[in-house]
């Protein structure tokens, strides 16, 4: 097991290098850099050059990259080109909104996805099953921005139940309920997609579990049907679902770019869009690196969890 983890960690190093190199070079290929985006085009070219020098943009790309990498290896993600604050602070202040959105969304996903998936599997080919399966297709086919706009249209504009966006009411009470009311719509948009995915996973792994011999044995020895389903089948069926969470959560943490944009949610996804429009390379690189690390950690944890929970899986090679 330890060997397996070590091996995976070693493989992760070149992959991370690859990610940063590719991202850096693609980014700097763009016409116009941060200075061109920020300053008045009428400005004296000497001053522009001075500005570029201050940010290190006058140097060749590979030097810029090596400098950046050197910083990262020494624990610094550099400074934002926009307001010169450390990248880690800029990302840090956006982390909590994104985290709360991700937790809320994943909560919805499990709260709806697992029970619906279980019932659909237990009553396979019933009306409920078809209905649930159809809705799960709907959930993965519905573009997030369309769902977001529909929710704003109905819940905010037509019935005025919930706010259209933002983290909290400006100048309002800003208590827990105010924050929660702002969280509901964007959280639902993200949650619906994930609920659909969780439901499909739960249903198919539950179906597989139900037809296993140990479930037949449990039934055969006269256990109550509820005990058979919930303690014997469900426990085993949930493994792939938990793995799925390990894979989805880092992606959610990476920031839901479109959802945050629609609801003007000040999270990492919105920061990414702002950084891209302003050519703020250090911020983009920081976000990229962080998300890549989280995705890879999620993958590894999912694999390890899987291997720990299911002794049939033996990682011999890779």
């Amino acid at each position: 097991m330890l060997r397996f983890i070590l091996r995976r960690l070693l493989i992760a190093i070149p992959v991370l290098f690859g990610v940063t190199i590719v991202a850096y070079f693609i980014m700097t290929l763009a016409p116009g850099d941060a200075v061109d985006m920020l300053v008045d085009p009428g400005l004296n070219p000497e001053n522009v050059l001075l500005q570029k020098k201050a940010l290190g943009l006058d140097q060749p790309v590979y030097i810029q990259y090596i400098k950046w990498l050197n910083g990262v290896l020494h624990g610094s993600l550099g400074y934002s080109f926009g307001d010169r604050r450390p990248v880690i602070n800029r990302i840090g202040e956006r982390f909590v909104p994104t985290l709360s959105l991700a937790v809320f969304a994943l909560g919805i996903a499990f709260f709806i996805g697992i029970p619906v998936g279980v019932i659909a599997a237990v009553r396979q080919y019933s009306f409920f099953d078809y209905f649930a399966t159809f809705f799960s297709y709907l959930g993965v086919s519905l573009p997030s921005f369309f769902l977001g706009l529909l929710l704003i249209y109905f819940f905010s504009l037509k019935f005025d139940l919930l706010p259209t966006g933002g983290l909290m009411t400006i100048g309002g009470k800003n208590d827990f309920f105010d924050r929660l009311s702002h969280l509901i719509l964007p959280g639902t948009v993200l949650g619906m997609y994930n609920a659909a995915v969780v439901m499909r996973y739960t249903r198919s792994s539950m179906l597989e579990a139900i037809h296993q011999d140990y479930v037949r044995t449990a039934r055969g020895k006269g256990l109550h049907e509820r005990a058979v389903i919930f303690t014997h089948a469900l426990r085993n069926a949930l493994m792939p679902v938990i793995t799925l969470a390990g894979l989805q959560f880092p992606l959610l943490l990476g920031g839901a770019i479109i959802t945050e944009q629609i609801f003007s949610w000040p999270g990492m996804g919105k920061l990414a869009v702002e950084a891209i429009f302003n050519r703020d390379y250090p911020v983009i690189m920081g976000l990229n690196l962080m998300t890549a690390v989280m995705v890879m950690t999620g993958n590894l944890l999912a694999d390890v969890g899987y291997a720990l929970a299911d002794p049939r899986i033996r990682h011999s090679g890779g």
Partner: protein
Amino acid sequence: MATAELTAVPETTFRIEHTSLTRLIIRRFLRHRLAVISTVVFMVIVFSAIFAEQVAPHDPNKINPGAFDKAPSLQYLLGTDQVGRDNLSRVIYGGRVSLSVGVVAVGIYMIIGITLGSLAGYYGGAVDMLISRLIDVVLSFPNLLLILVLVSVLGPGLRNIMLVLGLLGWPQIARIVRAEFMHLRVQEFIVAARVIGVPTPRIIIRHIIPNAMGPILVGATFGVASAILSESGLSFLGLGVQPPTSSWGQMLNAAQSLSILESKPWLWMPPGFMILLSVLCINFIGDGLRDALDPRLRR
């Protein structure tokens, strides 16, 4: 639903006795009722996009000063936008852009994915190691973030979106192909082909790829759905197709203004609904294809 059943029943009852593989596949596909209905609906969408000139009631880009911001009426079934362009015609023409992005992008990454996937799966060893790490690198990027960066680098526009989605979408296909190749390469008929001296490229093209076609086709179908979603998301953010060309996502971009969102739902609901309908149909078709082509994977 009725027509789907009528066509499905004779197929299954009369051709059972001597079934070729193709017939077997068609029969299995026809059994998936939602997939059949979706095929019919999707065909209608595709044909109205192809024959947009004949179907659309008005010129989608004609600015009409006499008809700014009209609500739906008999003349303009879905109303008009701020500059008097007929919204229904724009939805019909928008389908052309959205669907072609899906098809072209998937076409590009099928070529890359099949090539790299077969190399990795057939040769294994160092080649496999290298290609697999490349797959890891591309998959480790937060997808939309990288797409956004690339599109803003290359400049927004239809061709660049196709290119970017094509260049980034291949790992999934490469993985499927690699797995199929690893499975097939040790099968007796491939070993036999190698023993009698069939050259490697011929083994790959004539013997392995046709056998791996099922999962590849299914992957491609789902790929078209996700490419359409990506394009619409980019265009929604304003980084996609540029005006005056319209795509469904770009038409929803207008709804970022609260006044249009609230007071003119006929402008943004239809294109959003068309995205949903197309993606839903393609997903059902993909599901039907999976059941038909690869019964091992049936859920």
